[in-house]
């Protein structure tokens, strides 16, 4: 079997003057959970739709388990599972009827009840789609991607719109897939999700991959520092904050300041001294390690979700 479930090189897709996907390269090893991470409009969905054979590409090479989805679309579709970001399901069919319907499209489907159980919808098996909550529909869509028992599963923003509990439930489902040796190609704009769930992360922005690797090494590669965050600093102190011992970079965001440092104890000691000297009480201090969010911020100058 091929070591790489997905290989993409030089992929391009243009809509009018917009480069939705711009010279994209990526490689997904079999058995991995691969996360494509980026803000809305970064080209994640377009990429997924090209990979699963729903959309044509303008340039580049794509191999899905050795097959080209542009030429062997049906063969590709029969060997993968897909959950699209904008999916549509017959509104007046029940959960079970839909899983059975999708099961009938594949050669060796999983038993429908088992799949329903896996996504925690057993109690809703006889409920029609229209009567489900947004999160339940999302889980049903993931169930439909699982029913083929495929080696490679595409999940396009599976946890968007889910409450934290349902999101964790879905993470368990995805971890279970990995334990079974399946490859999962996942897109998300949740940093935390990518960090916790993915073996490899590709950060995309404007149709390009700007960093790729395991989350921990991406963070270490871009940040050896930890971050100290606090609020209620004085604008005039900015320059002095930058000169505190150990601080490599600073970031100011409204009322809130972030200091990236290689030496937490000395930075904090210096910060306290500075605050005391100025007669300012700084509040809400948190010390954390750097995250993918920080990486994204450093690479693009923007937060990933600009709310």
């Amino acid at each position, binding site marked *: 079997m091929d070591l790489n479930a997905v290989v993409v090189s030089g992929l391009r897709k243009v809509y009018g003057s917009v480069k939705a996907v711009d010279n994209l390269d990526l490689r997904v090893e079999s058995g991995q959970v691969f996360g494509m991470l980026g803000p809305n409009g970064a080209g994640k969905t377009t990429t997924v739709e090209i990979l*699963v*054979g*729903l959309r044509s590409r303008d340039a580049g090479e794509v191999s899905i388990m050795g097959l080209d989805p542009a030429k062997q679309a*049906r*063969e590709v*579709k*029969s060997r993968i599972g*897909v959950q*699209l970001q*904008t*999916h*549509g*399901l*017959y*509104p*007046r*069919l029940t959960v079970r*009827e*839909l899983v*059975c*319907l*999708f099961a*009938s*499209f*594949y050669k060796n489907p999983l038993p429908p009840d088992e799949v329903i159980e896996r996504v925690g919808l057993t109690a809703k098996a006889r409920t*029609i789609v229209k009567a489900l909550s947004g999160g339940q529909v999302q889980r049903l*869509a993931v169930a*439909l991607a699982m029913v083929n028992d495929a080696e490679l599963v595409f999940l396009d923003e599976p946890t968007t719109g889910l409450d934290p509990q349902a999101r964790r439930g879905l993470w368990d489902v995805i971890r279970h897939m990995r334990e079974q040796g399946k490859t999962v190609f996942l897109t998300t704009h949740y940093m935390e999700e990518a960090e916790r769930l993915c073996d490899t992360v590709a950060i995309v922005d404007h149709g390009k991959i700007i960093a790729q690797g395991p989350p921990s090494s991406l963070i270490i590669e871009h940040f050896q520092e930890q971050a100290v965050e606090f609020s209620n600093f004085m604008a005039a102190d900015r320059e002095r904050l930058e000169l505190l011992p150990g601080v490599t970079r600073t970031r100011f965001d409204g009322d809130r300041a972030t200091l990236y440092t290689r030496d937490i104890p000395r930075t904090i000691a210096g910060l306290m001294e500075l605050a005391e000297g100025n007669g300012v009480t700084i509040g809400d201090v948190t010390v954390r390690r750097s995250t993918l969010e920080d990486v994204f911020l450093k690479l693009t100058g923007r937060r990933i979700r600009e709310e």
Partner: protein
Amino acid sequence: MMNAFRELFMASFKDMVRERMNLFWFLGFPILFIFLFGTIFSSGGNVKYDVGLAYDSEGPLVHEISAGLGAVPAFTLHTGTLDEELAMLKKGKRRLVVEVPSISLPSIGSPQSIRSLQSTGFLQSGEVGGPIKISVYYDQSHQITSQVLLPVARQVLDEVERRITGRPRVFEVVAEPVQRAKLSDIDFLLPGILAMALMQLGLFGSLRVVSLREQKILKSLGATPLPRGWLIGAEVAIRILMAMVQACAIIAIGQAVFNVNIIGSWFSILGSVFLGAVTFVSMGYMLVSFARTEESGQGIIQLVQFPMMFLSGIFFSVEIMPSFLRPVVTAMPLTYLGDLLRQVMVGAPPIYSISTDLLVLCSWTIVTLVLAARLWKWE
């Protein structure tokens, strides 16, 4: 894989019939139509016209005319004074009022006396030498009265005169029906209603694929190995099944409730229904291919189905259409489907030959199907 088609068919069918409004449009609406038209037109057979007979005093002439008018099945006879009856006419309670003049000859009443009357020349010339004037009053605004009822009244009076004068009959009219089956209005209308139902099912039913596309259901199914054409294929199969069910329901109600005499074989009737369903489903798919949304599709279809419903001759005779509309009428597939169904269902006299009907419907199917396949966009 055949299993997948069956599952898809069942899934889409369930999804559709679980929406009550869909069921109404597909079964309830045509049935409502039959009952509406059926009750209006089947009562047409025993319509009664109120006729007033006005006279001052009874006499043999009054008896004769009263008996003559009373023998007409469509007349309900009322008697009274002229003033009373004219008042009723003005109120719209009478269609005709026949005024019998007083003839103060107590002797008429027996055949002999009539013959004696005749020999004195009384009935020919009247008291003042002319024929007896029998006035028939009617309301000019009722066309049917002047066109139909007056000649009937005249004929009745002629007959009375012939009997009184003993003049022999030269001609006798013997009614000999020549149609295979007696056709009433509802017999003509039922195939028309069926044709209309098939048109609506085909045209409006095709909106569903637009709605499936709008709801991203086509897209989601497109990510499975299912051949894309099957998605449309399953919808077409559902429409055709529904057409058959609808046809059976309409025919059964027509037969059971309104005594429509169906003379065609099931094979030829359901064959015609099948062809009609296929024609309008294809036409519907062609029309919705121009639409981006379900709403705009609805508009396009309204624009086509509404004139077709009224101009195709399924409810009104093609003869009464103004001549500039004729080319439109003769181009409409519904005209031919209506004609075909009338012929095969109730044996109505043909407007076109059956082979013309079949040819036109097949041509429409092929042309619209090719256009639909070219114009349809999956996204």
